């Protein structure tokens, strides 16, 4: 049974094929983009995450929520405690009821979550021509194509081909499935002022906000890869020891010794 590996490989190939087929269709593959978090050793570029958070706050957040983003999470991407507290305090959070049974507004704290831009889904739809702007907390994991797709979508706005007609509230995006997207082009050059002086081109902002969203979707990624490295190093040594142990135990049997018959 030497073709053994073909079985395993075949199964894997089947999964791989199964995976790729979803991307097929009329829409082009996402652009090839390099991200700091790519590969087995990739990490989130802190400066890029912070710039991306700025883009999110100043642009995306007017329509898109990020309900799993707690302000305490900002400490993980290089914000100092004071900075994170200051950012939280910019938001008004509804708290309560107080001792008199009344709800009240107070500035946000580290333990609070990013408030949603709309009180409910119906309000969100009403403000967006009937389309629901999705929550962005896990959007990078929730789209086939992941981070490169999100990036491509943000830079993929274009004039529609002459034979295509757009209804009101529809926009043309090269990378969107079906091309007709309800979100108008969100980013234009110099829309935000980066504190670190980085030029705020559409590409740069798209790249930064995608990095931010990738972190938000998978905040434990760095821990995961770090633990993975330790696991792999340990296991490769351990497997060598297991191999040598097994080899030694079997050596005499391989030479013809029968432990249940031949007495020592």
């Amino acid at each position: 049974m030497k073709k053994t590996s073909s079985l395993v490989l075949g199964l894997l190939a089947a999964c791989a094929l199964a995976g790729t087929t979803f991307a097929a269709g009329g829409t082009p593959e996402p652009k090839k983009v390099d991200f700091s978090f790519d590969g087995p050793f990739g990490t989130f570029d802190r400066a890029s995450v912070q710039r991306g958070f700025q883009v999110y706050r100043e642009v995306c957040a007017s329509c898109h929520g990020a309900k799993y983003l707690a302000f305490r999470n900002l400490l993980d991407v290089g914000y100092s405690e004071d900075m994170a507290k200051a950012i939280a305090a910019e938001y008004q959070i509804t708290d309560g009821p107080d001792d008199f049974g009344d709800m009240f507004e107070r500035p946000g704290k580290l333990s609070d979550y990013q408030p949603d831009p709309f009180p409910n889904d119906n309000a969100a739809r009403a403000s967006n021509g009937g389309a629901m702007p999705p929550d962005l907390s896990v959007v990078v994991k929730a789209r086939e194509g992941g981070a490169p797709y999100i990036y491509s979508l943000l830079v993929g706005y274009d004039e529609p081909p002459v034979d295509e007609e757009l209804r009101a509230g529809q926009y043309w995006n090269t990378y969107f499935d079906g091309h007709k997207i309800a979100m108008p082009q969100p980013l234009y050059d110099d829309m935000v002022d980066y504190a670190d002086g980085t030029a705020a081109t559409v590409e740069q902002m798209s790249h930064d906000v995608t990095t931010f969203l990738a972190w938000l979707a998978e905040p434990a990624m760095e821990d995961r890869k770090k633990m993975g490295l330790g696991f792999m190093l340990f296991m490769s040594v351990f497997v060598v020891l297991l191999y040598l142990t097994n080899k030694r135990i079997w050596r005499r049997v391989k030479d013809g010794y029968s432990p249940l018959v031949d007495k020592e």
Partner: protein
Amino acid sequence: MATGGFKPKNKAVRWFDERLPIFSLLHGSLGAGYPAPRNLNYFWNFGSLAGLMLVVQLVTGIVLAMHYTPTAAGAFDSVEHIMRDVNYGWLIRYIHANGASMFFIVVFIHIFRGLYYGSYKAPREILWMLGVVILLLMMATAFMGYVLPWGQMSFWGATVITNLFSAIPVVGDHIVTLLWGGFSVDEPTLKRFFSLHYLLPFVITGVVILHIWALHIPGSNNPLGIDVKGPQDQVPFHPYYTAKDALGVGVFLIFFGLFVFYMPNVLGHADNYIPADPLVTPPHIVPEWYFLPFYAILRAVPDKLGGVLLMFAAVGLLFAVPWLDTSKVRSAVFRPTFKLFFWLLVVDCIVLGVVGANPPEGAWILVGRLATAWYFIHFLLVLPLLGKIEKTRPLPASISEAVIKKDTGARPSATPAE
């Protein structure tokens, strides 16, 4: 199970063992008291790996259940809570989610090993059939587990699969209502799936114990497929196969770790990170990869009831394999034509998997039907006929003779030395 004659050296252990012979049981089932054929190859590792995966899934699942909320409003949030706020929650969840795939990979290889070496033939029919029961239970468990995160694919997968039962005449609609706990997939469905997803692994554990019990009556089959003739054909399970299984576990954990640590979502669907929405149907509703061949068989038939019956028949058929295969020779090593058909079946199953992953349009429909037809032809025609007409190679006289004569200069251990 040869438990007789085992005397623990430690006095306290012996005292206990005389009253409850649990040490004798271990000694006789996994220890030095269980003789196994000396020529088992690495394909015999997958049984212990399947056992390992059952334990991994149980342990991680029990921890996940401590943090999970089985409500339509809370399920998705609680999974993200596990991923973000529970200590090492991401690790436990990724082990569990990928563990399901690993469990199926291991079990599929285990099954194909049984098919290749004729491990289902007398006197191991019950052993094999218990294995098929385990496979069915695993499929039910995995399906219900995939519903629990309450993402889009959870919801729509549950809708499509539970709807299949409505094809059954007369009682179909009642069964579906019972599965749903109402008139659509909703919170009652999620709650009963969670309850059953927690229960079934323990049922699996029970059947696994029976499976191992049934294994220990005749003992393991082996790559030559011939019966053990005497102790010279065997080695004690411990330390020989414990060491070999440990090596297998080590290599397997590296493979497992690649998924958990470096591509934890590659086997899943992006759509399942979108919270369930009964008003939005995803463009492609596709089951997890391990169900794809069965999904392809389901869709190969234009009639709903026919498809459902054929899909269940594809698994149910396996119960009859010990009697469908008429060959007296177990191992494919001595059945040159069967060997070809075996690999054709493997390819056929992979083709079915690919078909299942693709939308049922164009050439995929034809390929799916041909592959489905071949699957049944293999079991219902090829296996019975081949056993009658195939010219098999001569079998060796014994395992020890076949294995030891390869090494020139080694003494034949059939003759007791000293």
